[in-house]
């Protein structure tokens, strides 16, 4: 039985180009989401006849990252976009995504949702497991390998702090992935052309039938303030003419600080 695979993609500003002032900067898929896209494409190749789709929640500017996902071979995309969604938190974002997964599943049941382990902006890692909880589906976070996939379940491997765990999840399920899982492909020219022309529907609060108590400004957490991290005070250059002299001077410093 072919699978319906769904990838959640967040459009974010590159970490190297002033993520602190994201206004007006171009968005691209958050780095780990690219691995989720690649894994969906690989699973589609493993289970012939499967379909892939991408889902994003964001402003109209998030259409661009969705197009870049389409250029890689994902067949369709939906953007959740509504001014009322602003001011939410990761759990409320997961709520809106879960409504979209239900809506998509009404047409063709989604078996597997793939997310990056965390985004490069918020870095909370909450959306994947929270999405699973809203849907009542099992989840596995920080997956590094899909060992086996069948019509009804899949077996995955993940690294915990003390070792490697292998677990089986019944469909439908949600996975969040680390970059160990694959090596993302590059888009083809043909893919880019097709992505340019693709229609990306936008769904708002009323399309999703969202409960206003659960998203946007009603979210349980809010950002009170953000402040740039002050640069670290400049350090000390360790003197010495030979490696041995430098090693001695450094070891002395570390010893003073009770680090040896």
């Amino acid at each position: 039985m072919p699978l319906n695979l769904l990838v959640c993609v967040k459009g974010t500003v590159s970490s190297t180009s002033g993520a602190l002032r994201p206004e007006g900067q171009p968005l691209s898929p958050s780095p780990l989401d690219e691995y989720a896209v690649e894994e969906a494409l690989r699973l589609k190749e493993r289970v012939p006849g499967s379909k892939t789709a991408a889902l994003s929640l964001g402003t109209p500017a998030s259409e661009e990252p969705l197009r870049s996902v389409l250029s890689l071979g994902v067949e369709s995309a939906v953007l959740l976009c509504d001014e009322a969604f602003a001011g939410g938190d990761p759990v409320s974002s997961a709520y809106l995504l879960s409504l979209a997964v239900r809506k998509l599943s009404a047409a063709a049941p989604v078996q597997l949702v793939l997310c990056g382990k965390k985004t490069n902006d918020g870095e909370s890692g909450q959306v994947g497991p929270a999405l699973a909880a809203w849907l009542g589906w099992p989840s596995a976070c920080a997956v590094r390998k899909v060992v086996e996939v069948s019509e009804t379940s899949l077996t995955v491997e993940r690294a915990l702090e003390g070792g490697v765990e292998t677990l089986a999840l019944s469909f439908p399920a949600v996975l969040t992935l680390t970059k160990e899982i694959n090596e993302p492909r590059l888009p083809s020219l043909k893919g880019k052309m097709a992505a340019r022309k693709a229609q990306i529907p936008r769904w708002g609060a009323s399309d999703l039938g969202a409960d206003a108590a659960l998203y946007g400004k009603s979210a349980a957490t809010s950002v009170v303030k953000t402040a740039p991290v002050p640069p670290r005070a400049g350090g000390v250059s360790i003197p010495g003419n030979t490696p041995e002299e430098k090693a001695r001077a450094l070891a002395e410093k570390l010893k003073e600080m009770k680090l040896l």
Partner: protein
Amino acid sequence: MSADPKGILCVADALCPATAELLGAGRALADSRGEPLALLLADGAEAEAAAALGADRLLLLEGPSLAGAPEDAWEAALKPVLEAESPRAVLLPGTVFGRSLAPRLAVALRAGLVSDALTLRFDPEGRLLAERSICSGNAVAEILVGRWPALATLRPMAFPRAVPGQKKAEILRRSAPAAVSKARVLSFVPEAAAEIELGGADKVVSGGRGLGGPEGFAPLRELAALLGAAVGASRTAVDAGWIPYRHQVGLTGRSIRPRLYVACGISGQIQHLAGMRSSEVIVGINQDPDCPMMKLATFSVQGDLVKLVPALSAEIRRLRGA
């Protein structure tokens, strides 16, 4: 949930340094409001040791074993217990376990969650305020959790560890309903015991492009063993296949904050700095004195790491009289 929340509840899957950090953070929060601190553990085997870590109450979850159970099973088992306890705040470790479970609990309890908290305090109304790192470590956001219970996972190494004391927690048993999980753990293979885990490591010796190849890690491992440090790596070293991914520090790897971070041959791309810039003391060892890591380092040592790292190991041995 209840409009009359009370107390701090720490949730742990095992007794480990992260659990001691939960209790360290929890004790300060509990004392700030004069409310009780509880620790919830699934496994009864470690009850005695856990009871000595400063909690007022130790809740042992009885019933089908949750040790190593998937997160949806934990969610189902904990939901009724947390509803009955009605805590003001619930703290979970910033491990894969905590990061996986906390969002599920937040949804189940319609609660608010802050991930990877660096600091925690209550506002005058008893609502939780937490600081966390965002945007690749370039900024800190303060998050207000507007509902109870307030859930938080703690950034490893950000809070003082509770130490065993004379006071013993009152041990209470709570029965967990049989949880139906749609996931099943098939196996768990522990890492080699000799390896120090990166996330909770007090010291880290890390290598990057400047090592030149997988064999470049040998002197770093030697230094790490002398220091009792974990071994880290930059993305370049991991992508080149010189060392497994579990050692990667940075945006697409681990975020850590050890007391000592020794960066050998790592120039300090922003993605790498994102994972280690809050380390207490940073030592940079590099040929290029102007690279970002050397600018950032508490102590920068310019030179050939092939000579410097063994020289440092030799010096440490000499100082120890060995």
